């Protein structure tokens, strides 16, 4: 029976061939490839061409070649044995057809290789995109830095100009220049802010602040704005919310302002409602639902997914100005603070932006007080008639701006040095009460100079207040300035109040 089964089901897939020393067929069982006596073995495939020259045919050899593709009308994938004999017997070639087995192996290899290649290509694409993104962000950072210097001149000199004798018409002109400069400053700030968020260089500070006061301030500011636009503004604020929060006041304020600015911009009639309600409290954290609802132009369902993209303004008509960064900054900041933002909108009816965020608050709200002093209050504490201030700054515009602002105060002698290398000598030979230090200066940079000053064996050098004047505002930069020994930072472009506030604070 076994023999019957074998006869029925056993299909031998192995061919035996003997050849002479010139590669001509002597015998073949022709199971796979039809060969006649005297045929060239290489007529099956070029694989056999010159094969005999690889070995000494007069010795015993047994060489195996695996997975060889042979084509002869039909394609076979075979293992081939090549045997030579020292006793002069003819060379034996055994061809095993493993096509089915290798077909399966080919499919596995195909899938594996394709997957590896695709992942390598994806990795390269990501690398390329990242490089492109980094280039864009570095460009934006440098570009906004370069814009800030001339803007300092405009802003600071507007303040100075406003204090001179001018006609009402001239005062109006200065007001226009100042407001345009402020607008430009805000836009540059937005672009820089967005680039910081995108490269993950924006960190969230934690300071104690009065949340109720912040909402009152927003209510006041936007009520005035609503009157000017002839629309209504309502604030629905849950007074049970803790007064004091620990968080980044500037960023939180920015979230509210950007959402409200957006609502006001697109609402011509009707109202804007700001609602803040407490959701729950747990472990010194209060969860708030914040909503800014308007009766503005709304967003079409097709475009709603684009609303938080950078540089996106859904209304392309030039009617609404702006960089299109406000909402993407809000989203970036909310997510940085582990919050969530969503939007619901209906075209020509209005939009509602909803933010859900946790805020940390001190348990003892009663005994919390904040120390806030204005520049003028600091002014009252001055102990000397005149103070020596060193300004290390290479921009002539910034030099003139600081000189004009300080000259008006009448409390200061000002030394100006434009080159980083001369700063150290001047510090050694003069007793300064405060140093204003530009960062990007020719010669040595301001942060390096600060480190050198702090290590000088001269009295006061370790304690003299050194304030950075800079447009490099990445958190990494700020940390570095502090590490180098700088006391504080005055951001460019600065105005009169900001500059004097900081100077008086450190002269107290």
């Amino acid at each position, binding site marked *: 029976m076994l023999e019957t089964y074998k006869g029925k089901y056993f299909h031998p897939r192995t061919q035996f061939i003997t050849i002479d020393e010139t590669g001509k067929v002597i015998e073949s069982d022709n199971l796979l490839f039809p060969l006649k006596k005297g045929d060239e073995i290489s007529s099956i*495939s*070029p*694989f056999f*061409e*010159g*094969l005999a*020259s*690889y070995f000494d045919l007069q010795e015993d050899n047994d*060489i*195996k*070649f*695996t*997975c*060889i*593709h042979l084509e002869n009308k039909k394609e076979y*994938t075979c293992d081939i044995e090549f045997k030579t004999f020292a006793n002069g017997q003819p060379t034996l070639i055994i061809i095993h057809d493993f096509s089915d087995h*290798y077909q399966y*192996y*080919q499919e596995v*290899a*195909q899938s594996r*290789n*394709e997957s*590896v*290649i695709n992942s*390598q*290509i994806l990795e*390269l694409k990501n690398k390329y995109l990242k490089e492109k993104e980094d280039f864009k962000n570095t460009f934006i950072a440098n570009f906004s830095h370069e814009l800030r210097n001339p803007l300092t001149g405009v802003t600071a000199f507007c303040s100075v100009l406003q204090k001179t004798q001018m006609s009402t018409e001239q005062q109006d002109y200065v007001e226009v220049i100042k407001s345009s400069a402020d607008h430009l400053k805000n836009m540059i700030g937005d672009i820089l802010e967005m680039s910081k968020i995108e490269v993950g260089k924006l960190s969230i500070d934690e300071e104690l602040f009065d949340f109720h006061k912040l909402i009152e301030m927003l209510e006041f500011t936007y009520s005035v704005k609503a009157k000017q636009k002839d629309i209504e503004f309502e604030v629905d604020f849950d007074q049970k919310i803790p007064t004091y929060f620990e968080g980044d006041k500037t960023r939180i304020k920015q979230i509210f302002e950007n959402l409200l600015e957006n609502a006001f911009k697109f609402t011509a009639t009707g109202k804007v409602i700001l609602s803040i309600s407490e959701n729950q409290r747990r472990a010194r954290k209060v969860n708030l639902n914040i909503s800014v609802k308007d009766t503005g132009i709304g967003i079409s369902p097709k475009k709603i997914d684009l609303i938080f993209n950078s540089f996106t303004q859904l209304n392309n008509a030039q009617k609404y100005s702006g960089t299109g960064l406000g909402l993407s900054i809000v989203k970036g900041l909310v997510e940085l603070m582990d919050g969530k933002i969503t939007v619901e909108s209906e075209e020509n009816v209005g939009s509602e932006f909803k933010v859900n965020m946790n805020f940390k608050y001190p348990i003892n709200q009663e005994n919390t007080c904040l120390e806030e002093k204005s520049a003028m209050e600091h002014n009252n504490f001055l102990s000397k008639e005149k103070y020596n201030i060193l300004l290390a700054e290479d921009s002539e515009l910034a030099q003139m701006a600081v000189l004009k602002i300080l000259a008006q105060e009448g409390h200061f002698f000002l030394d100006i040095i434009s080159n980083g290398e001369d700063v150290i000598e001047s510090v050694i030979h003069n007793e300064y009460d405060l140093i204003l230090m530009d960062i990007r200066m020719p010669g040595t940079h301001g942060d390096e100079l600060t480190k050198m000053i702090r290590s000088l064996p001269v009295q006061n050098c370790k304690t003299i207040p050194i304030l950075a004047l800079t447009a490099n505002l990445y958190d990494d930069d700020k940390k570095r300035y502090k590490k180098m020994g700088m006391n504080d930072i005055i951001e460019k472009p600065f105005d009169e109040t900001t500059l004097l506030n900081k100077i008086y604070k450190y002269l107290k």
Partner: protein
Amino acid sequence: MKTSKKIILLGHFGVGKSSLIRQFVENSFTTDYKVTIGVHILKKDVNIAPDETVSLIIWDLEGYDDIKKTRASYLLGTHGFIYVFDVTRPATFENLEDDITYLTNQYAGTPLKVVGNKIDLLPKDYLKENATDFSVAPDFFTSAKTGDKVDALFTTLAKELAK
């Protein structure tokens, strides 16, 4: 006069070894990638002089990420090597220097051509500006797709083998 020479194409998988051979032997190209397992052997006669022909027996080997894994039996009696990498995939030329050193040590005196393939996928001046990307200066930059420098590669090697 006609002589037969066995040459082997080596390199990582997916670098275009089979496509180079298909372009050289059949003047055709397909974007469909079919993984080679084991070895395919093709043959083409190359006229290197009016009365001199070299019959190239071209062994198209399965791609390996480590050249040392190549089956020893395949390499028996090889007259020349072509080492191919993909200029767009750094993984295929990361070990270029080591692989070439290995081959030149193991098969001293056997002609070897180093080839950067798929140049059609790169911007025009990329190779000039990024020549230092490759630890070994390639002998040829080819495109199996357009056929650029493919004939030149095989003919140059054939001439060298005939010497």
